[in-house]
């Protein structure tokens, strides 16, 4: 585990990744490394708990777009919850919400992804 990825767990067949701190290129690569490793094991559903990530940059978010693209190839899904308002707004501007889902809470995310 790194300073940025503070927890990876599985629940109802979904991989839950918890982040902490700045989602930049380094943070984005850490998320993608976990997702691609899990996809190699057959996992296709991912949720990111971003409660600890109050700030992002477009390079880090672009790596999430790469993950979405790879998940489309295996009919997979990714979602996010506990987003700060500016992170949610950034995801909207960049269009991530057209291809992935923002949830309010972990319970909703796990039940509805």
């Amino acid at each position, binding site marked *: 585990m790194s300073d940025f990825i503070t927890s990876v767990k599985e629940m109802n067949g979904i991989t839950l990744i918890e982040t902490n701190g*700045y989602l*930049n290129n380094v943070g984005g690569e850490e998320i993608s490394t976990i997702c691609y490793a899990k996809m190699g094991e057959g996992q296709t559903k991912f949720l990111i708990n971003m409660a600890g990530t109050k*700030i*992002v*940059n*477009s*390079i880090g*978010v*672009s*790596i999430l*777009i*790469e993950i*979405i*693209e790879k998940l*489309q190839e295996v009919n997979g899904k990714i979602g996010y919850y506990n987003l*700060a*308002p*500016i992170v949610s*707004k*950034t995801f909207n*501007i*960049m*269009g*991530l919400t*057209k*291809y992935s889902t923002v949830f309010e809470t972990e319970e909703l995310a796990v039940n509805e992804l």
Partner: protein
Amino acid sequence: MKKPTVELKLPIIPNMELIATQTAEVIARHMNLTEDQSGEISMALIEACINAFEHSKAENNVYIHFLIEENSLVIKVIDQGIGFDKTKVEIPKIENKIGHDERKRGWGLQLIQELMDSVEFESNNEGTTVTMKKNIK
């Protein structure tokens, strides 16, 4: 009376943009801006700094000037890089990026324009100044 200003000189080192956002947060609190406005300023500032750090090919420092005005906060991000032609920057669309070879990056200008109330670019082969304004509502 002269308007208060804050000036930063940032070396081109990874994550130095966070120094700019911390300064912006202090200024936003001083100006009684909302949390949403403060977040929007920080995000736009991050993107302007990254453009200056990465795309300008500037070798020296990046300068940031915060101008505290009565009804607005004006932020200038100044680099001494190679400049760019804004008319040649395409508006990114996620539909063109997912499932296509197009690179996934290239969102900086779009985010800055969406998050700030006005944005102006002055650029030539001696550098670029991005002037961003957030109005107090």
